[in-house]
């Protein structure tokens, strides 16, 4: 049983890792506390639902179209809300509140059109796959493998491509980037698109496994943010490590206590980290408090 819980933890951890990475991509570079990111996670499945069940396209095409629309939504958020605020040099708290505003608006638009009850994409009983005494569904295996691929490709890009270098430069000092002639607003569009892509892919895959409702994004995002804090803000490897730690820890707390207390365990961990090591596991030491 223990191994099964570890395996479940890795599956959940891969979701947290990807969502956390997408969140970190924006938080580390622009310092926007992008709570509306939760919305993208649940927006993509609803788009898949529209194209797959509504228009009867095949699954792969509807997945692709839905991901493109979600990426577009992410860029629109930047265009309509964050960019004007950034040009006005508004404070970060204002960005945070605006982000809550976007989240409320989009969640309720979805709930208005699709209803707030749980919807499923895949009505068949999922096929399972057994290794030793660990049982996983094919959807879970594809979640883990696709997130691994995304993580590896992203980290390689970050290390070696021009885009990666620019991202790391923006993380270190975005004003200096501007002084050196980099168009940071163009760069921000790219970052928002990329983080939207991460969220859309994993959101779609998870919804294909377990279904979705309009409020499914927020708990995932909250866990992902905790993962980011635990991993450490700044380094892009940190949210990935944090995500897997949270995932496995939650699965183990289900094993040791019961599923009811897994959130409490996560937030207790958050408080402990905020108190004793606010820089997280990986980050270099600098004053945050």
């Amino acid at each position, binding site marked *: 049983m223990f191994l099964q819980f570890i395996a479940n933890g890795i599956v959940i951890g891969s979701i947290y890792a990807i969502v956390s990475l997408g969140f970190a991509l924006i938080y580390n570079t622009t310092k926007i*506390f992008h709570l509306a990111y939760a919305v993208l996670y649940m927006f993509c499945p609803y788009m898949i639902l529209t194209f797959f069940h509504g228009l009867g396209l095949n699954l792969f095409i509807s997945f692709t179209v839905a991901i493109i629309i979600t990426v577009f939504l992410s860029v629109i958020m930047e265009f309509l*809300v964050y960019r*004007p*605020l950034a040009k*006005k040099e*508004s*404070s*970060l*708290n*204002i960005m*945070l*509140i*605006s982000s*809550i*505003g*976007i*989240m*409320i*608006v989009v*969640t*309720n*638009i979805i*709930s*208005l059109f699709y209803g707030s009850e749980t919807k499923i994409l895949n009505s068949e009983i999922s096929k399972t796959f057994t290794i030793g005494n660990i049982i996983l569904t094919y959807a879970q295996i594809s979640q883990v493998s696709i997130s691994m691929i995304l993580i590896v490709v992203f980290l390689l890009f970050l290390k070696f491509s021009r885009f990666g270098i620019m991202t790391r430069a923006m993380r270190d000092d975005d004003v200096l980037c501007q002084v050196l002639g980099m168009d940071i607003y163009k760069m921000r569009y790219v970052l928002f698109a990329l983080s939207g892509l991460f969220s859309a892919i994993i959101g779609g895959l998870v919804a294909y496994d377990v279904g979705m409702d309009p409020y499914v994004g*927020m708990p995932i995002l*909250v866990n992902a*943010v*905790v993962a980011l*804090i635990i991993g450490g803000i700044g380094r892009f490897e940190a949210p990935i490590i944090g995500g897997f730690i949270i995932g496995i820890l939650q699965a183990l707390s289900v094993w040791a206590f019961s599923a*009811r*207390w897994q*959130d*409490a365990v996560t*937030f*207790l961990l*958050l*408080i402990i980290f*905020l*108190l004793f090591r*606010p820089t997280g596991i990986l980050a270099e030491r600098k004053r*945050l*408090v």
Partner: protein
Amino acid sequence: MDYIFHIIILINIYIILTTSTNLLVGMTNLLSLGQAAFYGLGAYFSVLALMVLHLTIIPALLFSAICTSLMSLLIAYPSLRLKGDYFVLATLGFQLIIYTILYNWISVTKGPFGISGIPSPSLFGLLYISGIYSFLVLSSVLAAMVIYIFYKLIHSPFGRALKGVRDDELSLLSIGRNVTSLKIWAFTLSSGFIAIGGCLYASYVAYIDPTSFNLDEAIFILAAVLIGGTGNIKGPIIGAVFVVVLPELLRLVGLPDSIGANLRQIIYGLTIILLMRFRPQGIAGEYALK
């Protein structure tokens, strides 16, 4: 007529919530996403006072306010060491922990089933406060009292010191004020007063369950303050009236409840986005969020 009284009672409850949240957000520049937790704690403590300890209303109010303040002290001390986003996150974490505890500690809080049949409180054991008229009087008196106290507080040296924390923490430190203790005072006072709102809610509705005190409620309270305006007395009052009256107006227009609920949330969301962009101090506030 009862319907209008019901709305006025709700407005009174929300005035208490927003006015006390304003002490944190508008006066001290501490953005808290954990206000619903204290609202909930206040409600649950007052149920403890009314149903288990059989207190009358005034001791029950005091009991829940004091217990909630003590709880908030536990939370204030660790979270106030953090700044900006980290503080928001810590309060978010506490909000979720307290919600999880209220939801899952079934032997004490009855969890998701909620506590029903909360008895109507009595005043000095003589007068039973039941029925809408007596609650109208009670809530109006309490709301007026809270507004008066906060009016006095804002214009007291303590209030000015808090505004100092908000505007320039460093210069306040340099003239020798203890910024951390000021923040802790603001935090505990705010949660103590918010507990009065919780107590009022619990005894008025006579039924509480954890879902009334979740993260959405915390965001809602914060949104009400920010829409109304931060930093002065009239802002939060306008915010409370706005968030309570808007859904009723939508209902009067004839929208069915299923659409109306979503539509009013969309209106709140858009209002917040537009206000943050064009008028960050809210409708009637004096302080633009930093």
